[in-house]
């Protein structure tokens, strides 16, 4: 007999089953996605235009955020600075902080909001207005027409935007640190190169690629499975941003452990 009480085991059981259902549907979507790769004549032109839209559309916010992030990193480093350390270490600190962590994570989180919400809302609206049903009823694959271009565009463009963000943020950090401490250009460049390993750049790009893939896949999944009209579209967009952000933070920890501590 059902009553109004709270049953923790039942609640946990339902959450677990709901999680498994999501996992199953995401796996099916991945399978559809790989199957749809054969239809390259359909997804390739759409991917190019989608990637251009993501790149150009996100450029301003990426420049703005990376510029501020680089400057603030420099000012805070200056605030905590101990005079016993050589000043060239500031070049190392700012460059490594930005390239290893701030660049990919900040841009990943911003784009989770910007393109994640857009993808989920676009596909969600297409779902509730039966456009996805229409595509299927025409014998065409929603994977190659809608999902592959979006997932590939975010996977390709996130590393590109992170490279731009890293360059701008390091530049802003360089300029910023000169305003608060007596650091010369030579000191900064020397420090930046002193601890530099080419793997650091690869690490930044690997993280950006993983974040781009996660944003594309999660937001397309949320939008594709939208239900119940305008309210459902709103819920999908919110869920896409929240889930993408959480997954980015989880991936960040996971990749740091796997790639930096082998």
């Amino acid at each position, binding site marked *: 007999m059902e009553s109004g009480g709270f049953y923790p085991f039942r609640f946990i059981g339902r959450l677990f089953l709901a999680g498994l259902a999501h996992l199953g549907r995401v796996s099916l979507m991945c399978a559809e996605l790989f*199957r749809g790769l054969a239809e390259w004549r359909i997804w390739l032109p759409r991917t190019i235009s989608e990637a251009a839209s993501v790149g150009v559309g996100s450029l301003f916010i990426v420049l703005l955020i990376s510029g501020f992030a680089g400057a603030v990193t420099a000012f805070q480093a200056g605030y905590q600075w101990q005079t016993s350390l050589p000043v060239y270490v500031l070049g190392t600190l700012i460059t490594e902080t930005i390239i290893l962590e701030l660049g990919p994570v900040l841009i990943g989180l911003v784009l989770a909001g910007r393109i994640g919400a857009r993808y989920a809302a676009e596909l969600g609206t297409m779902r509730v*207005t*039966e*456009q996805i049903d229409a*595509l*299927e009823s025409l*014998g065409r694959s929603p994977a190659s027409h809608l999902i592959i271009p979006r997932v590939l565009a975010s996977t390709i463009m996130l590393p590109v935007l992170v490279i731009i963000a890293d360059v701008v943020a390091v530049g802003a950090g360089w300029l910023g640190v000169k305003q608060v401490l007596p650091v010369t250009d030579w000191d900064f460049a020397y420090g930046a190169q002193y601890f530099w390993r080419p793997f650091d750049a690869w690490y930044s790009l690997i993280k950006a690629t993983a974040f781009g893939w996660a944003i594309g896949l999660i937001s397309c999944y949320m939008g594709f499975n939208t239900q119940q009209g305008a309210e459902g579209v709103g819920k999908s967009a919110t869920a896409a941003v929240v889930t993408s952000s959480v997954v980015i933070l989880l991936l960040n920890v996971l990749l740091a452990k796997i790639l930096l501590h082998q």
Partner: protein
Amino acid sequence: MIELRGVRKRFGEQVVLGGVNFDVREGETVALLGPSGSGKSVLLKHINGLLRPDTGTVSVDDTQVPLLKREALAQLRTRIGYVFQNGALFDSMDVFENVRLGLSDEEKYRDLEYSRERVAECLRLVNLPPETVKKFPAQLSGGMRKRVGIARAIAGAPKYLLYDEPTSGLDPVNADVIDDLVIRLDEELGVTSVVVTHDVRGAFRVADRLALLYDTLIVLEGTPEEFRDSTDPRVRAFLERDFDSSSFAA
């Protein structure tokens, strides 16, 4: 031929179809009537495999639709044109691209010259001027969107046409235009059609046979005359709500 046998479908706790039997023979136009929310569109979506029944069989030309694999289902769908209730046009594409997507043959789809000719032909069939091709769905009226939806559905020269509420939301004059179009396309293209509607007057105009879906089941299937003469209280309640029987006696 389309055959549904014992089709049951539920969404959560709500039973929508409770063991429906429904036939459509080649060349005929069948109107599926029923109150709003009675499951007419759900039944229609079983025919082209957009939905799968919980139990029961759905066959089109002796092919079991729910058992088809992805490629075979896509192939079957190229023979079934589907007209959605609100057009379901792709709002990021212009009318030309929308109708062109209806071309089921990939070679023909890529042939731009053929596509242009075929799109123009389809727009002519639905009484839309050629200059409509450059417009986007947001620039079209409700009636025009429905006609573009029909043009897209016929672009691939399907054998079957499924109409989901083709006249809903239209004024009586535009509803008549769409009904005339359904009749003309049946005659000119020789397609087999299923028209889902709650517009009794329109159903009597376009259909060779009618079926009433009521409380999860088909309660009557027959000719317009059989419907008119039916004493079943559910049929009478549904028909007389729209208009008195003298209106469709003519």
